[in-house]
């Protein structure tokens, strides 16, 4: 039994730094290369020294696959390719290749320019890194080398997000990255065919939640925003520039239009236009509705949402501001938060998951005072609301995906240990398959059955089919072939005996049996043969029985009738050694007919 080995370097019973090593069939594949937003030290990057303590890493990794542009999935890529020195192939979808460098650059600016760190990758490194990326399209089958094949499936979640199917020989794995099984306002739902992988590696961010209907959450969100601005409060919505932001913008835009509201709505960072351009250009990755109507009306041209300027922070009166980044760990959203937090008429709505260590995580856990590195203390009096708009699959979605692709094993990553435990039990119980949840640095070994390609002789298959169909139908009967396995140049074939003789170039020694049955049947021998043929056809339904020149053949058994018109006929039955069963059966049949 060949094994496959999976070691999470990040995302093992954890959220926030996806990086999983997969080894199968002698190939090593890195699934995502993410960065942890909650740390400022070396813990933010995966532990690459696990792969190779010293020396070049390229020889140890056959390829890197990036599932989508979120930094917890691609944030460490420039570090790996430009600072650790990985030079092998990197795969991601076209939109990911277009958008990832922008997010990487934003993040780099925050880390280097605001926090003053020096040992970090540069803008040039991001560009050089992205140049090395091979962009793939959905469902394209990409041969990384002669044995390693990958294929991307639509994952929903964010623009360009993909799940990857990976195959080496007969072993296959599906890695989901982050995905979403329900369509939203701008993206479709994840989809995969029944590819029956040996292993499904799935995220489990919302392993225990079955989320209430999307509509309810949306209504709730709009109500909260509306109530707050009506009272003159300011609403801060920390988002990542691309992804959820677009969905929430579409939501607010239509609501403002419908309710005829005049409160200002801003989208910060000037990224709106650029981000929306990406959505326009990659509109084929959005959902059906947007694709269908894009010629007439572009969903990403907003009427009510205006670009934000820093000077607006202190403007009096109500407003709604979308600001990056999404977890309040740095940048503009954090600056606005510091200003607005001490006032109770204001509100912050966290529309997504926050990793541990971020301000977002702290306030969601009820922190009323946040202390910053420079000893600054901010009191949190504003309302803090959490709305799960993150497009991750919930427990139901995960079960649905398992149903779609029918894996033989499941491995959970990108989630919290306790919740994973719950889901693991559910999966094992419901699907009767093994489920694993290794921690970071822990290797999980999975046995997979081997399947070797083999060519089966059509003659052999036809002979089997004839035999099988001749027997009374029985759904429990298994079909069995008997042949000779031939191995030549490492290629396998299953042949019948004559084909095997040809294959090895020998003349076969044939053993043949002939017995005689005597029959009193006056008249020409040909007539007798006709009668016999009809009798046999009745008894041997489903078999090929032919007659020519008075010779009957039942498959490979020959029957010949001889004798003068007025005398006893000799019926010769003749068959080769391997047809003993059929030959003796027919002989017996003829003998019983004579008596």
């Amino acid at each position, binding site marked *: 039994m060949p094994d496959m080995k999976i070691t999470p370097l990040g995302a093992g019973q954890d959220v926030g730094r996806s990086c999983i090593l997969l080894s199968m069939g002698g190939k090593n594949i890195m699934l995502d290369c993410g960065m942890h937003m909650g740390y400022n030290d070396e813990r933010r990057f995966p532990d690459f020294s696990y792969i190779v303590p010293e020396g070049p890493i390229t020889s140890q990794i056959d390829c890197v696959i990036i599932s989508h542009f979120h930094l917890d999935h691609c944030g460490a890529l420039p570090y790996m390719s430009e600072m650790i020195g990985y030079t092998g192939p990197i795969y991601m979808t076209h939109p990911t290749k277009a958008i990832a460098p922008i997010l990487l650059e934003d993040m780099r600016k925050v880390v280097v320019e605001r926090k003053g760190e020096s040992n970090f990758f540069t803008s040039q490194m991001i560009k050089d890194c992205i140049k090395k990326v091979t962009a793939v*399209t959905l469902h394209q089958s990409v041969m990384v080398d002669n044995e390693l094949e990958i294929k991307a499936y639509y994952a929903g979640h964010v623009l360009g997000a993909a799940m990857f199917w990976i195959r080496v020989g007969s072993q296959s794995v599906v890695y989901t990255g982050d995905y979403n099984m329900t369509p939203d306002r701008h993206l479709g739902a994840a989809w995969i065919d029944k590819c029956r992988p040996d292993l499904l590696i799935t995220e489990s961010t919302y392993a225990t939640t079955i989320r209430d209907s999307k509509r309810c959450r949306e209504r709730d969100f709009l109500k909260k925003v509306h109530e707050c601005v009506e009272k003159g409060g300011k609403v801060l919505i920390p988002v990542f520039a691309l992804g959820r932001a677009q969905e929430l913008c579409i939501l607010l835009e239509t609501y403002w239009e419908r309710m005829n509201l005049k409160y200002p709505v801003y989208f910060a960072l000037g990224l709106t236009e650029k981000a929306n351009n990406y959505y326009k250009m990659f509109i084929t990755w959005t959902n059906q509705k947007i694709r269908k109507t894009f010629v007439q009306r572009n969903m990403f041209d907003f009427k009510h949402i205006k670009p934000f300027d820093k000077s607006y922070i202190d403007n009096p009166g109500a407003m709604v501001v979308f600001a990056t980044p999404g977890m309040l760990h740095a940048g503009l959203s954090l600056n606005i938060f510091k200003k607005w937090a001490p006032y109770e008429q204001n509100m912050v709505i966290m529309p997504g998951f926050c990793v541990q260590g971020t301000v977002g995580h702290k306030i969601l856990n009820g922190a009323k005072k946040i202390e910053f590195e420079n000893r600054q203390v901010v009191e949190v009096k504003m309302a803090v609301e959490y709305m799960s708009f993150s497009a991750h699959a919930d427990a139901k979605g995960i079960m649905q995906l398992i149903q779609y692709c029918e894996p033989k094993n499941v491995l959970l990553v990108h989630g919290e240990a306790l919740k994973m435990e719950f889901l693991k039990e559910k999966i094992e119980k419901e699907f009767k398959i093994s489920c694993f949840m290794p921690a970071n640095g822990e290797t999980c070994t999975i046995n997979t059955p081997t399947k070797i*390609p083999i060519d089966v002789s059509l003659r052999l298959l036809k002979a089997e089919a004839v035999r099988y169909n001749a027997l009374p139908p029985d759904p429990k009967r298994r079909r069995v072939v008997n042949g000779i396995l031939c191995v030549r140049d490492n290629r396998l074939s*299953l042949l019948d005996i004559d084909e*095997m003789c040809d294959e090895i170039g020998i003349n*076969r020694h044939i053993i043949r049996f002939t017995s005689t049955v005597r029959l009193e049947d006056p008249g020409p021998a040909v007539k007798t043969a006709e009668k016999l043929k009809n009798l046999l056809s009745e008894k041997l339904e489903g078999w090929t029985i032919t007659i020519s020149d008075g010779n009957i053949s039942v498959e490979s058994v020959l029957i010949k009738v001889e004798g003068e018109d007025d005398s006893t006929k000799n019926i010769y039955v003749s068959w080769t050694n391997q047809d003993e069963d059929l030959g003796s059966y027919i002989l017996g049949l003829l003998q019983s007919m004579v008596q």
Partner: protein
Amino acid sequence: MKLYCLSSDASKPCFVLSFKELLIMLDCGLSAHSVLNFLPLPPVPSTRLASLPNYTPPHHNDPLLEGELKECCGRVFVDSIPEFCPPLDKVVDFSQLDVILISNYTCMLALPFITEETGFKGQVYATEPTLQIGRFYLEELSEWVSASGEDSGAAKRWKEAVHVLPPPLADAVRPRAWRRLLAPQHIARALSRVRVVGYDERVDIYGALDATAVSSGFCLGSANWVLRSAHEKVAYVSGSSTLTTHPRPINQAALRGADLLILAALTQTPAHNPDHMLGDLCVHATVTLRGGGSVLCPVYPSGVLYDLLECLSAHLEGAGLAHVPLYVVSPVADSSLAYSNILAEWVSATKQARVYVPEEPFPHAALVRSSRLRHARALHDDALSDFRQPCVLFCGHPSLRFGAAVHMVELWASNPLHAIIFTEPDFPHTEALAPFQPIAMKAFHCPIDTSLNYSQANKLVRELRPRELALPDQYAPPAPASSSAPPPRETSRPHISADVPTLVVRRGAALRAGTRRVAARATLSGSLAARVAARELRAGVRGAPLRASLSLRDSRLELHSPPPGAPGAAPAPPPRLQCAPPDVDALERELVRAGATDARVERGADGCILHLPRHDTLVHVDRLATHVFCEGGADVRQALRRALHACVPHL
């Protein structure tokens, strides 16, 4: 494998391949050549066309023919809604088709004729741009050709009188099979059947084979198809280009080493270099505009149009003519221009790089924003209310039989300052212009056909090294002349001359190609494989008997460990390969051990006879066979079998 050819127009191909018990249609091109025999359908009534004289063939008295034919400058035209020439429907029953594979949007316009009301039940596959742009082409056609009222009685009578009509009507091929375009709802239903595939996506066709669309470099989303079973590979190369234009470059590697290569849709204008033609077009346009005239380009709503807009706008800018407006008029102009800019994954690397900026891959979006380029659904559209001349106007249809182009030619034909420049290769420009004669406007012929020319195709075939090549007869070398006659002039016709066995297919004909298959692909479970101890039977060949249970899941064959035999019943013995005659002495000893002590042996020159008189049995042994004539009971025969098994050498 069998190949049928259903189209007589090699640039609008339609083949059917029977492969592994499946019927696979490769492309369904709609030949539009037939429309040239019809009178133009003006979008607004034209007094000139309406007042053309009737034509009656001399010495032919058929009152029903009255009014069906009109004459213009010595040419006769049918006065009816133009008809097209769809693929033959008599050779293959369309209800039996399993799959239709489409290579590009210029080769799919007959799809509704194949799939609608024919009992068609199969699958249709095309890339996303092929489907979308094919939809634009069909919607545009149906808007024009059905706009003039569907119920006006079609002229049919002339089809019975072709033999008395002057050429080119006299040479019309099977006009009775010509059809009007189907109704919009049929077109919509046909298009809704198409399943979208990406490049290099392996599509499983009923478990019997994989079909993969690979980039062909000809237009957005254009594909060649590779069909692969476990043992055979067929490559269908249709509408390919090795030039660098806006689409993704051709993927040649995927086409290599096919058992059968089918070549279709080569260039229709082998004598014209597309780059030179584009240059000529820019020059003619500049000269015309400088002289105060306008330029009309009859074009399709996608494809080369994008290149024309890009090159011409840059050229005019360089010539100080940036103020000249460019117009695109088509019912699908807005969709086509917008759509081309969201196909980042289907364009050349240079265009793709722009998307990462992010900027549109094609400059026409910027031209629209700066108002240099205007587009409108029709000539009377509000978008054209400030129509300015001189200008460059792009509109269809290139045949000049319907669409806005008809009206524009009527309008501009008498002015020698204006020019019409033909770029689409589908129609000979003199024939397109025939019903508008006499004209004073200048006419230029700058056909831009980026499909493979003959030398490129020959080179490609050499590089791809197929085992067999199939061609429509138009591309085949001319038939060899009889030995006495001088070689006909025709030998100079460009053709494909390949150093591989070549099959030439004609419309309506079928050809047998490829080899008969002898094996099916299956997988052998590792646990069963581990139990087999294969011995070396000959240098490099190992073998062992194998008994396996057979299962078929999702059309995939699997071999597993066999079921344990029913209690009491011994499993069938594995087949044995006896390779030499038995040692007769040993056989005698074996028989004695089994109780048959009366054996007598007679040795001859090339074998011997063993006689068991008590059991009424003879055994003939020679070099190749042992023949047992046994008149004893089954027990005797079984004893003999056992004895023979023991002493016939086997592998």
